[in-house]
């Protein structure tokens, strides 16, 4: 075998052009495959960073009649699940939180989570230093302890081990650091499959969660997610059945809290399924795409090797004459192709490393676990296996074809081996047809997804995201203990921001559109029956200042916007969107109607205005009914500032920070980003898939063109004598051009036809990833077919032109 490897290496050195083209072709194919496999490995295959993650489930409740499919649980509900369900080893509740850290000079807001003391043992993850929470630390007054991430320990404490036991000031409160979690630990994970289930930033601080007496009395106040570990020997189905029995009991015991129908219930979801979610389809599409690219690269290499096999026919004949068996020749051929593939894989891995970094910059913030993506030993092993497999695949056809040389002919002085050349030609033609067909399939898929993406980008979100800067603020309860203090701060900040040069409008909101955060609330409509059998409406709620509508240019459709007079103590007011007005007052004006919203108390709120619809959950998601409440009447400590400017919104960042610091030097500004970026992030997975797919389609087109060019060039060389004879007999250059182009045209035509058939059969697989584009979109099919045919024609025209320049004298003399 060493001998064969040595000979293969020598072949590469001897034919540097062949080696370079071959290695680059394979590098593109294998590099793309490695990059996509790296993503698949990290996002789909690798287990979640917990012990035995397959037994972890999430518990969500639902009110189907109100279209609420995945809602959190309330503390009393959680306690029932925790104490009564026997199917679980452990159950833990958690909720996200943010902390304004005061370390060093600059205050900083970091993400964190409130978690049951049981969470860490439930996940089976130990801290790298210190400990996790004790059960008694869930009690109010004992919860001033935190566990921090390795990332925060590194970033803020320079990995100082003495941080354990030290004090950390967050939101004005003093906490004791008791533990440091490993770098790989991440919780909560973004739940990709649940709209609004993305928990945004990676948590760096965990605080024990305890429920107050007040919370334990509010069965309807649901804000905690629940995670559980199934007990050994208990199947998810058994656990689900037990949950349903418990829920039936809850419905019976608390008839005022639950509808007596199946509308209310609880469902267990495997954690991994929720984390992977929609990205799975996109990744599988990419896997299909790289498989096509790799096949095209293989077909290309096979045509190149076939051309070389023709040139090496004499060598093979000699090898047979001195004793080589057919198997031995095949082994030699396959060794050469595998060695070539391994070189290709080496360069491909470098390309993949670069591509992965590019992918990370495109979507780290928005694609769950993308930060974990790296080329690890598993990926390298798979790449090696792909290289060997690829080498065998593209080497087998020329290897088999070259293993049967016509000895009598090939060993003759000047023998040309015409019989096997004819056989090789047929194979080459078949390979080119295959390449064109595969490229067309990939181009069609990429074309459909691209068109779909463009359509999506052109969807009107219901607001104008251009030139708007957003930033998040969280007022700590210690410094801003009451509504008046919070409102005062927000008003002062708005006043200051309004004076900044270029700023036209500014406002606050609790939730930005397309930020993957949601909040909904049930309410009562005046004059409409609502009881356990007639559950009241439950729709999306936002708390805003009047400037918010102006800053986002959300149009006022009817009535009026909030005004300074709509303050605390004044009659309660609410602004609704057009969709909500249409749902509940379809044939009348909603303005003037009254609703009762639980968190504004028992008083009625009057609908004072109707604004335009906003696609809150995503450009491809339907418009949801929404209602807006004024901050002045419903104070809130965590708000997002939206500032419209006449200039590049990013240029306002430092001025914004300055104004916040001027009011409160300890208050950090977080998540400062243009609104356009928020929207771009919301389509990041789709954009990533489109970018990669278009890139792969480009590679496929390039490889197919190189393949056609190579085959036609070889054909021209092979037919030099024939062309010389034809020209000697009077053929014009145009006749020769026609001869070659006709041959190429037949191959391209056959490949295109085959590709169209395969594309028509396969694009329906893309259906779920397309937005307002049919899987059989005629313009896309036409466009890519014409484009491919054109490129293929150019690729064959170049060698055809060369053929027309053949000098009959030289051509005939070469025989």
């Amino acid at each position, binding site marked *: 075998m060493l*001998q064969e490897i040595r*000979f293969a290496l*020598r*072949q590469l050195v001897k034919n540097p052009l062949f080696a370079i083209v071959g290695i680059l072709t394979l590098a593109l194919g294998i590099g793309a495959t490695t990059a996509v496999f790296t993503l698949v490995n990290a996002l789909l295959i690798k287990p979640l960073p917990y012990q035995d993650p397959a037994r972890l489930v999430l518990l969500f409740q639902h009110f189907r009649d109100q279209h609420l499919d995945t809602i959190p649980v309330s503390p009393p509900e959680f306690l029932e699940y925790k104490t009564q369900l026997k199917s679980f080893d452990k159950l833990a509740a958690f909720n996200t939180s943010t902390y304004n850290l005061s370390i060093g000079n600059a205050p900083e807001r970091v993400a964190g989570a409130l978690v049951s003391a049981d969470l860490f043992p439930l996940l089976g993850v130990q801290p790298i230093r210190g400990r996790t929470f004790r059960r008694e630390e869930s009690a109010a007054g004992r919860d001033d302890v935190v566990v921090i991430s390795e990332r925060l320990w590194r970033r803020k404490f320079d990995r100082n081990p003495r941080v354990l036991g030290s004090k950390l000031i967050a939101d004005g409160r003093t906490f004791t650091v008791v533990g440091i979690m490993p770098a790989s630990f991440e919780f909560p994970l973004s739940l990709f499959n649940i709209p609004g289930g993305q928990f945004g930033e990676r948590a760096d601080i965990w605080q024990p969660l305890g429920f107050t007496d007040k919370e334990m009395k509010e069965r309807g106040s649901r804000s905690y997610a629940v995670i559980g570990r199934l007990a050994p020997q208990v199947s998810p189905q058994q656990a689900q059945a037990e949950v349903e029995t418990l829920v039936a009991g809850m419905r019976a015991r608390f008839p005022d809290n639950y509808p007596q129908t199946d509308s209310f219930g609880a469902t267990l979801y495997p954690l991994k399924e929720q984390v992977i979610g929609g990205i799975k389809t996109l990744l599988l599409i990419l896997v299909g795409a790289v498989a096509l690219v790799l096949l095209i690269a293989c077909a290309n290499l096979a045509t190149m090797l076939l051309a070389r096999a023709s040139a090496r026919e004499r060598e093979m004949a*000699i090898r047979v004459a001195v004793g*080589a068996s057919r198997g031995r020749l095949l082994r030699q051929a396959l060794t050469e192709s595998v060695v070539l593939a391994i070189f290709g894989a080496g360069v491909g891995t470098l390309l993949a490393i670069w591509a992965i970094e590019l992918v990370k910059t495109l979507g780290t913030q928005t694609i769950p676990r993308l930060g974990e993506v790296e080329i690890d030993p598993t990926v390298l092993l798979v790449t090696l296996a792909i290289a060997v497999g690829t080498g065998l695949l593209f080497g087998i056809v020329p290897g088999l074809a070259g293993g049967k040389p016509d000895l009598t002919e090939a*060993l003759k*002085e000047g023998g040309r081996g015409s019989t096997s050349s004819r056989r090789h030609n047929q194979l080459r033609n078949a390979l080119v047809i295959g390449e064109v067909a595969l490229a067309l399939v990939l181009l069609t898929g990429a074309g459909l997804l691209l068109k779909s993406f463009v359509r999506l980008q052109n969807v009107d979100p219901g607001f104008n995201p251009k030139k708007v800067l957003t930033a998040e603020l969280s007022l700590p309860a210690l410094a801003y203990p009451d509504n008046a203090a919070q409102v005062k701060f927000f008003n002062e900040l708005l006043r200051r921001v309004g004076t900044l040069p270029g700023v036209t409008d500014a406002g606050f909101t609790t939730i930005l559109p397309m930020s993957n955060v949601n909040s909904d609330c049930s309410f009562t409509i005046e004059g409409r029956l609502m009881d356990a059998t007639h559950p009241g409406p439950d729709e999306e709620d936002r708390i805003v200042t009047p400037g918010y509508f102006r800053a986002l240019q959300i149009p006022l459709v009817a009535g009026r916007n909030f005004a300074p007079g709509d303050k605390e103590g004044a009659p309660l007011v609410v602004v609704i969107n057009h969709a909500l007005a249409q749902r509940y007052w379809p044939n009348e004006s909603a303005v003037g109607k009254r609703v009762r919203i639980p968190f504004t108390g028992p008083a009625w709120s009057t609908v004072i205005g109707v604004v335009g619809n906003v696609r809150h959950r995503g450009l491809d998601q339907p418009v949801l009914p929404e209602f807006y409440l004024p901050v002045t009447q419903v104070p809130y400590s965590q708000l997002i500032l939206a500032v419209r400017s006449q200039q590049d919104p990013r240029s306002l960042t430092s001025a914004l920070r300055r104004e916040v610091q001027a009011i409160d030097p300890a208050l950090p500004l977080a998540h400062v980003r243009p609104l356009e970026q928020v929207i771009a992030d919301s389509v990041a997975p789709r954009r990533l898939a489109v970018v990669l797919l278009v890139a792969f389609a480009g590679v496929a087109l390039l490889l197919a063109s190189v393949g056609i060019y190579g085959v036609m060039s070889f054909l021209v060389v092979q037919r030099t004598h024939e062309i010389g004879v034809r020209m000697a007999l009077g053929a014009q250059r145009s006749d020769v051009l026609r001869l070659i182009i006709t041959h190429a045209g037949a191959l391209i035509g056959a490949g295109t036809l085959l590709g169209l058939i395969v594309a028509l059969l396969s694009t329906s697989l893309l259906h779920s990833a397309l937005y307002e584009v049919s899987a059989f979109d005629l313009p896309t099919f036409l466009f890519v077919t014409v484009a491919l045919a054109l490129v293929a024609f150019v690729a064959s025209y170049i060698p055809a032109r060369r053929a027309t320049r053949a000098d009959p004298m030289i051509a005939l003399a070469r025989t």
Partner: protein
Amino acid sequence: MNTGPLIKLEHIERSYPLGKQQFTYVLRDINLDVDEGDFVSVMGPSGAGKSTLLHLLGMHDFGWTGEYTLDETAVHRLKPKERTILRNEQIGFVFQNYNLLDDLTVYENLDIPLSYRHYSKSERTALVADTLDRFSIVGKKDLYPRQLSGGQQQLVSIARAIIAKPKLILADEPTGNLHSGQAEDIMRLFKKLNDEGITIIQVTHSETNAAFGNRVIQLRDGWIVDGQKGKAA
């Protein structure tokens, strides 16, 4: 112990189809015995079928009819794989254009027939070293064929042919590309190998080369016209 001829051909015919039910014959009713230790020269004008006969004997060509026995093995009854094994055991080839592998050194060109015959690494090293020494080409072992003269290339080619110790060497115009001085050296080498017991069949146009052998077969239009039976002087 082989008591009969090394090669026995009976009613061998080789034809190629011309059209429907039409054939052109290259070899006609060939009957030939070659004894072990013979040095046979096959002669005749171009197109007489000399090379075809040689490739047939070398089992490069399987499209013939008749009976061919080599060292008491009925070749016509063998499967292709068995023929390959028999060929590797019994036959070495020498070509007019040397047919050395261009990308292998002299050493590797000698090594490769042994590796195809599954000799162990140590056996191969020993045999190649012996052969390099025997043919006085030790100093050339790391050179590539293109770095050698025609005569030197043919020398390597003959060394390659005998390295696996065949009983029979088939040589197709082995001096055709050499000048007379080199040609004579090569023929002396063949004569020496023949004297050591190797049976040689060569195709040649040269009476001088034929004179090194002990028997001449004349072919015309596919027929043996002289030397079919018995031994020529």
